[in-house]
């Protein structure tokens, strides 16, 4: 390929070079995993993995939106817990009821996101302060609703979401839908504005972009997706937990970053985040395969986050250094 064509190609892949790199990584880990455990490539296994990772994946895509616009959302865990607790306790056992309840919960999550975004943009507070505090309150509210792990979502709800159409699971369909949605919205004005705001907020403002509105929407999307993630989690576990979802916040950042989204904003995209979710799972499986004890998984989570962000940041610095120097 000539250089120009290559550039065009990179630009056509919606989110640029970084997404391509994350997919190369994904393939690499798949190959390694295939060597040690050939059944990884079985369709049913992929369905199981997708079922397991969908909650994180949804949360991660929400986080990606916020990161793209230059923010950070630490309230994702709290929203998942709240959504999980409410759904586990109050999900009615009728189809219209389920749909209505799900819509209500997603609306609640979106509302919380809007609130975050409003406070952040209106009063010009650091995103992490607001979302961190809101997270704390949300965890408290979940604990009020559901003091201990439990709840009993209707079995029809659980089986509907965990249903398999032949070999294809509902979660896989959802992932495909997400990819299609992202490709459809990537070139819309709103998403372009998200990138602009993340890359150069001031330029965006001077060019007539409503920066606060764009930021607020990213937080709302993040809240809504986190609520969805909580709904999925309810089905996946067939119960509720007032605090377990809190552990989702950090990996949601991890998979966004390994998927190529820059912590500084303006670079990356949701497709990469999907790859990131699978990469994270593959590495964890690899660790389990090697016989690591469970606490190593916790250690690994931290190391992985720091190392990915560190490597990306060093690469960016090198690039920036070369350009300026």
């Amino acid at each position, binding site marked *: 390929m000539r250089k120009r064509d290559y550039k065009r190609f990179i630009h056509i892949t919606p989110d640029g070079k970084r997404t391509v790199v994350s997919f190369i990584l994904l393939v690499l880990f798949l190959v390694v995993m295939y060597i040690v455990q050939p059944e990884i490539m079985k369709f049913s296994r992929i369905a199981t993995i997708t079922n397991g990772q969908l909650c994180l994946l949804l949360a991660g895509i929400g986080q990606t939106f916020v990161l793209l616009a230059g923010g950070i959302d630490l309230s994702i865990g709290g929203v998942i817990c709240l959504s999980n607790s409410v759904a586990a306790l109050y999900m009615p056992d009728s189809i219209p009821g389920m749909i209505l309840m799900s819509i209500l919960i997603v609306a609640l999550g979106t509302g919380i996101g809007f609130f975050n975004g409003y406070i952040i943009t209106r009063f010009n507070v650091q995103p992490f302060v607001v979302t961190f505090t809101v997270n704390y309150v949300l965890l408290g509210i979940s604990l009020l609703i559901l003091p201990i792990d439990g709840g009993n979502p209707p079995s029809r709800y659980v089986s509907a979401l965990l249903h398999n159409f032949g070999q294809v699971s509902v979660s896989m369909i959802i992932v495909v839908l997400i990819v299609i949605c992202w490709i459809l919205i990537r*070139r*819309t004005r709103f998403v372009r*504005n998200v990138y602009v705001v993340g890359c150069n907020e001031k330029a965006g403002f001077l060019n*007539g972009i409503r920066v606060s509105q764009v930021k607020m929407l990213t937080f709302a999307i993040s809240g809504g997706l986190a609520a969805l993630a909580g709904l999925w989690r309810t089905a996946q576990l067939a119960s509720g937990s007032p605090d377990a979802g809190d552990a989702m916040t950090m990996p949601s950042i991890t998979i966004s970053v390994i998927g190529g989204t820059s912590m500084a904003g303006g670079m990356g995209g949701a497709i990469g985040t999907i790859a990131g979710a699978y990469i994270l799972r593959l590495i964890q499986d690899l660790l389990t395969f090697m016989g690591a004890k469970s606490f190593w998984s916790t250690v690994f989570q931290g190391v992985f986050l720091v190392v990915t962000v560190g490597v990306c940041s060093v690469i960016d610095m090198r690039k920036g250094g070369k*350009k300026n*120097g």
Partner: protein
Amino acid sequence: MADFEMRQISKKFGNVHALEKANFSANKGDIMGLLGENGAGKSTLVKVLCGVEKEDEGEVLLFGKKMLRRTPKEAMAEGVRVVHQELSLVSNATVSENLFMTEEEKPYRRKTIKELNKKAEALFKKFGVEDIDCTQYVRELPLAKCQKVEILKALAFEFDILVLDEATSALTEKDVEWLFELIRKLSKEGKIIIFISHRLQEINSICEQITIFRNGTSVCEAKKDELDTDQMVTLMLGRKIAGYYPEKAHSRKEEVLLHVENLRNGELTGVSFELHAGEILGIGGLSGQGQSELFEVLYGAKGAEGKIEIKGKECRLRSTASALKRGIALIPEDRGKQGLVLPMSVKENITLASLGKIRKGIFLSALKESQSVKKMIEKLQIKTDTPEVQVVTLSGGNQQKVVLAKQLLAEPDILLMYDITRGVDVGTKREMFNLMQEHCQEGKAILFFSTDTEELVHMCDSIYVMFEGRFKAHLQGDSMTEENIIRVSVGEAAV
């Protein structure tokens, strides 16, 4: 009544009147020149016009209709397009994406890259632009082309008023010609053009009407022919300045303070020179030819290969701290971003670069600190009530003096001055020039970069002109003229 009028605009920032009952008016097809010193209120006027700042009092009328301009978006919808002094491009997007960033359309409407590129190419064709590839990322473009993209972005949509705020500062001479052609064409189409530049020459060659601002208000509106350059300068300053530059002291000695050999990195392609004691060595050339890179390398803020000898001793400058220790200090170009911690006090700023010198044991000595600060305030005649006030409350010129004071307190032998006179009033400029000479008479040396060629010619013992990362010519004695500096900076040979 004129077609476009800004009436009695006032704007206060804290206690400072940025604009005080300022008036501005123009008719269709006018090319208005807006003149004034920095801090005279030009930029604030533009910001008010384009909705970035809201005026405290006053109103803006276009064709007799009141304009609201609550946000930049609204201002654009009302027909105002501004090419800002600072670029407002998104570096991680392509040229065509940037060009149509401001486009008004439904948020959910998709636009493919192909569509955008096609539109961009049509736009380029319309305005005769051939040297920009619209699929390139903005971060890969040199500054001059970025500025061109910024201008084109403003032209991409319908407008009634076009404001060019220092839009020519990074353009090449050829591009300036292109821009002027364009402006004339637009004015024939009945657009109102407001042209702001610190280059009087440009104003003279393009504008028909001139409005001069001073201290936040308009002091003169006239046809260009009614004013000559001297009158304009006088109106801008509000007083006559005689003997703008001090007489040359010729204090250059034989002792070599700084010897640089074959300095190279990404931007520099082999720079060698010697700086003597008592010398003011000028660095000329258009900005962006590697000057800031050179200064930052010499100050240890960036790395480069090559040899640097200070007073005959070879050394590696790994950090700004090590450069300061060896007696090199930099007065950076942007005082707000690189020179001063704006919310901190004058005192704290002045001692920031020499904290080691005001220490007593492990603690800072309040006595030593206030003594040093007092000395510097007196020496530089910084106008401030007490040294405890925040430096942000001072005027531009005084702020620049605080930067100078800070670096001078570190007692450097070699002072690197990067365009220190930008945005400084003439009175302060003169004080600074005197100070530079004093500094050199003490046997110290100055490396002086300025975008103002007149300054270079009047202040320097000799001048190197930089072009594409290296020294293109060394101008001495009679060849040290403004004409020669410009000739070399655009790639010609000196005469």
